[in-house]
């Protein structure tokens, strides 16, 4: 299973990972175009700071994910093979109840206020790291100029 690892000392706080994340998860796949249109692009990785040092806060795709236990729609699931925790692409759909946001100890799930236009029903969605399913390596890892982020193969 792959997880995102962070070599903290190397981070310079350039936030290119955030931009790459927004870009990857926008319909336009381009940051500038995405800011002009809807939905408003939102990052799913967060470069926070403490004592003037940058610190990326990432989704850990936990072994025992609290967001999954909290999900009352059953759409937040941990994939038994890849280990990736995600609320999209399952039989059940995200209804924007925000229980996962309340449950995630790292604060890396956020609400989208733009209602999803796809599907028969329109609900705001909870947004979280999905490990970029369309890519081999997540966009943030590719974008990082300092080799801070790494998609590492780990055993559970």
């Amino acid at each position, binding site marked *: 299973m792959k*997880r995102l690892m962070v070599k903290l000392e*190397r981070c310079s706080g350039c936030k290119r990972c955030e931009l790459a994340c927004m870009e990857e998860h926008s319909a336009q796949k381009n940051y500038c175009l995405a800011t002009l249109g809807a939905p408003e692009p939102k990052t799913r990785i967060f470069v926070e700071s403490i004592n003037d040092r940058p610190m990326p806060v990432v989704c850990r795709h936990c072994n025992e994910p609290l967001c999954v236990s909290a999900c*009352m729609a*059953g759409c937040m699931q941990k994939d038994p093979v890849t280990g990736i925790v995600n609320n999209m692409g399952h039989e059940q759909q995200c209804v924007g109840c925000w*229980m996962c*946001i309340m449950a995630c*100890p790292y604060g890396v799930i956020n609400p989208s206020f733009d209602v999803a236009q796809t599907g028969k029903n329109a609900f705001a969605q909870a947004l979280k790291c999905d490990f970029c399913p369309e890519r081999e390596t997540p966009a943030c890892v590719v974008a990082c100029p300092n080799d801070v982020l790494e998609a590492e193969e780990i055993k559970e």
Partner: protein
Amino acid sequence: MRYVIIGSSAAGAQAAEELCALDKDSKIVVVSQEGYPPYSRCLISRYADGRLLESDLYFKTKDFFKKCGVEENLHTTAAKIDRAAKKLICENAKEIEYDKLLIATGARPRFPKIDGLDLSGVTCFHSLDDAYRVAESVAFVKEAVVVGAGFVGLEAAYALTRLGIKVTVVERCSQILPNQLDIIASKIIQRDLEELGVEVILNESLISINGTESVYDVTTADKAHIKCEFVVIATGITPNKELAEQAGLDTDRGILVDEFLMTSDANIFAAGDCIEIQDVSTGKRTLSATWFNAVLQAKFASHNMAGGRRRYTGAVGIQNAVQFHQIPAISFGKTLIEDESSDGYEVISIHSGNVYKKLVLKEDKICGMIFVGDIAKSGFYAALIRQEVDVSKYRDKLLDQDFSYAYFKDENFGQMDPYKTIPACWGSPVWWLQRAQCMGIGS
């Protein structure tokens, strides 16, 4: 092992799933009063107003029990637990033997003592059947009254409003969501609802529902009459503890369990809305009453039923996330304090427009939170409450925009640590190699 589970909602279904994975050779039997595959009670309002289909409510998928090889008994009510013979006796006379039993009977609506509850057009809002009733009401109802402005009442009010019905909510307390929110937060959410056309009457209770066969109006304590054809009663829930009580297990308001979710009988466990928990945020025993609690408890209980010893700690009674219309809100832990200066509680808050954030602190810890309008990172604060983390070092930063998990990097909340340290010091060959790598030299 023979595992028997009573109830197949949040707690029951989760326990069945866990037990299947934990003990492959076991026999698992689920007994459920209701006639559906496990469905999400929390989503019934979204079904009632047509935003979801019935199939969307099946949070474990429709044929989940079959897939796991669980024996499912729908429309079957457990009537008695024979602890001596280790047997469950159902109302249809079916007897089911167990080695370990899980009581996940949840809760049922509580009704006020008023006249007219038996009229047609009066319903509670607790099950899929109730949701059908609300969905069908649209054909003959123009005006409806919802009794109780708690979470369930407002969900029902919102659904009815979306169906084009004029709704009046009657609440006894001086604010909506009296158990979850304080007065400031409740006003923001109330305004949000009123924008949709929901009418809220506070400080008022119902004394009777009037009609001959079906409802035509209700009378309030003020002797006012509100015309309506439909009444939803949402005045709280009460745990289904009777089965346990009659079997001689320890109960109080709900079923009493130890930190392993075991009842006073070592072969019987309980989880979900039917139990009482020790709330870390208040230090008091309280009802469990949320989906998240039910699922977590089921995980721990099933582990322990299969012979494990996992301690269930960090329970919190109040944990709600709501968004009826535009404004999201989250309340967690001890949010209501009778007198802010007493008992050493302290409150910090910020409020501007529709954004309101409040933290309740006691000694060095956060014990409650209300976030309205901006709910980002609320889970992080919730974790600080659950894990009773000392925040005294950051006292004056707690509600800053940039206060985040970064401040507690060493606190992994029980999960894998993604932060790697690079074993190199400044100036060493390894350090230079890494810098060179960072700058893209040699790659």
